[in-house]
């Protein structure tokens, strides 16, 4: 527990930790205020194709809608914000030499690795919670509540307001799971290198590569796609389907958990046997 407090104290003493929080808050406020002044034009644009098929009544531009838009916008950029902190957890200490202090105190390397991983996870959770809670609370304060209209490629899903809060909660949990893969991956890379930049760049490079493989319609990639964590990272969106596909949500969660386990094990094994030479 003391080791965890030690790690948390360190990451929350660094300015880079607050970059993510700052970026999230700025974007939430920008989107909220932009939609406050020109939200109706935005809704009209979105519903342009459906305006002849539906009669829309009630408050469509509500806090849930705003929060959903913000989630969609920000979640794409979250891996970078998470890697910024997780990628520095071990390599940052290696480059500054402080890893020697940690390793020459009465704690095992396994304890140190696990504590650092938990720290990365807590940070990831804090970022998602901040995003979720601030966007929801601020959105509801400015725009009130109402049913959530979700535009799909094949139509529109309308989810009633009293059916929404649990969906937001569970989608946040799935977003945390997806981002935990990123956090564990960047920490694994962090165990292999001696500088903070490489884990961040390499993590983002892997995500971009996997995303490209996942979106290109090439038969060879069809075989790979189900095994790439990037395919399953956006499973949180499925929580906003009218009819939930629980099998898809469960299988994606398992794939993400397996990735966390693999990345954690590889990083832990390497760190446990690593010679500290600098």
């Amino acid at each position, binding site marked *: 527990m*003391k*080791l965890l*407090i*030690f790690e948390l*104290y*360190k990451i929350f*003493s*660094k300015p880079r930790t607050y970059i993510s929080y700052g970026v999230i808050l700025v974007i939430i406020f920008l989107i909220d205020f932009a939609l406050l002044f020109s939200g109706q034009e935005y809704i009209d644009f979105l519903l342009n194709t459906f305006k002849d098929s539906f009669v829309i009544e009630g408050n469509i531009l509500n806090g849930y809608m705003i929060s959903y838009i913000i989630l969609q916008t920000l979640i794409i950029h979250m891996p970078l914000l998470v890697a910024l902190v997780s990628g520095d957890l071990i390599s940052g200490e290696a480059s*500054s*030499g*402080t890893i*020697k*202090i*940690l*390793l*020459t*105190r*009465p*704690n*095992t390397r396994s304890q140190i690795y696990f504590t650092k991983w938990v720290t990365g996870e807590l940070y990831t959770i804090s970022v998602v919670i901040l995003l979720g809670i601030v966007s929801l609370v601020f959105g509801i304060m400015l725009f009130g509540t109402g049913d959530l209209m979700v535009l799909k490629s094949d139509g529109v899903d309308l989810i009633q307001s009293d059916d929404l809060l649990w969906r937001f909660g569970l989608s946040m949990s799935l977003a945390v799971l997806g981002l935990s893969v990123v956090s564990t991956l960047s920490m694994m890379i962090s165990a292999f290198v001696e500088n903070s930049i490489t884990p961040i760049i390499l993590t983002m490079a892997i995500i971009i590569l996997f995303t490209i493989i996942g979106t290109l319609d090439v038969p060879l990639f069809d075989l790979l796609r189900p095994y790439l964590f990037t395919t399953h990272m956006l499973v949180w969106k499925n929580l906003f389907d009218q009819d939930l596909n629980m099998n898809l949500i469960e299988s994606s969660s398992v794939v993400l958990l397996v990735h966390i386990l693999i990345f954690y094990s590889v990083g832990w094994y390497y760190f446990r*046997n690593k*010679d*500290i*030479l600098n």
Partner: protein
Amino acid sequence: MDESAIVVRNLYKSYGSFEAINDLNIDIPKGKITGLLGPNGAGKSTLMRCILGLIKPTKGDIEILNENIKTGIPSVFRHIGSIIEKPDFYTYLSARKNLELLAMISKLKADQINIQQCLDLVNLTGRENDKVKNYSHGMKQRLGIAQCLIHNPEIIILDEPTTGLDPEGIIEFRNLIIRLRDEFSKTILLSSHILSEIELVSDHIIIINKGRLVAQGNIAQMLNEEDMVIYLETDDLPRTESIIKNNFNSTALASEEFIQFNLNKEKIPNLVQLLVENNLKIYRLDTKRGLEELYLNITSTHQ
């Protein structure tokens, strides 16, 4: 034979085909200052890192206070404080916060933590709330010692601790090390490139070269076992030099004030007798066995 704080047996560490440590067997006595010497690349830092568990040996055993580090890590680290190459800190935090955090992860009970005492010992009281990034090199070095001592370890391992210090800082550091041994009975393993520093503070020395042990033992005994360096001042230096050359087959280095040469200590009475018989006035006769010479002799014969 002194009781050993650290025992290294048949230690090997290789990187591919390169043997950084090769069948090393050493004993570091308890409550003494041991100087670790060797040329660059001899394996000094590798040895220290192996003792601290930072590098995994390829083969062999290390016992610290009778506990094998293969099984004893991390509990043995309760007894060790170290600075390897340079003291490392969280520079964005204050000195006090650094020490508080280290105390926290050192599994100490509240009554075992005395941060103020450590700060006082290294003369950092008054500056303890400044961020470490604003410290001078000497202050960081002193804080490094405080960091070593925060958990009151029995053993202190210092790798090149005086690197970058000014002469005043070196003297201050040396006095602190001696104080730690004399007042607090600490066992200190110290490596340095400055042989005179090692000679001034060490009770025991270990010399390694190319990863192998070349010599180890009590410094006073090791220095006395060899030839002495003689510094001789007489009223007629050229004649003195000639007598030395003819009778002792020793090459003398003459300056304007004295002659310096090597001589077995058993022959010193003969030298004095010869000088007196030749009516030379002896103003000064110093004998010294320098670590520098011993070190160079030993390492050159083990190339």
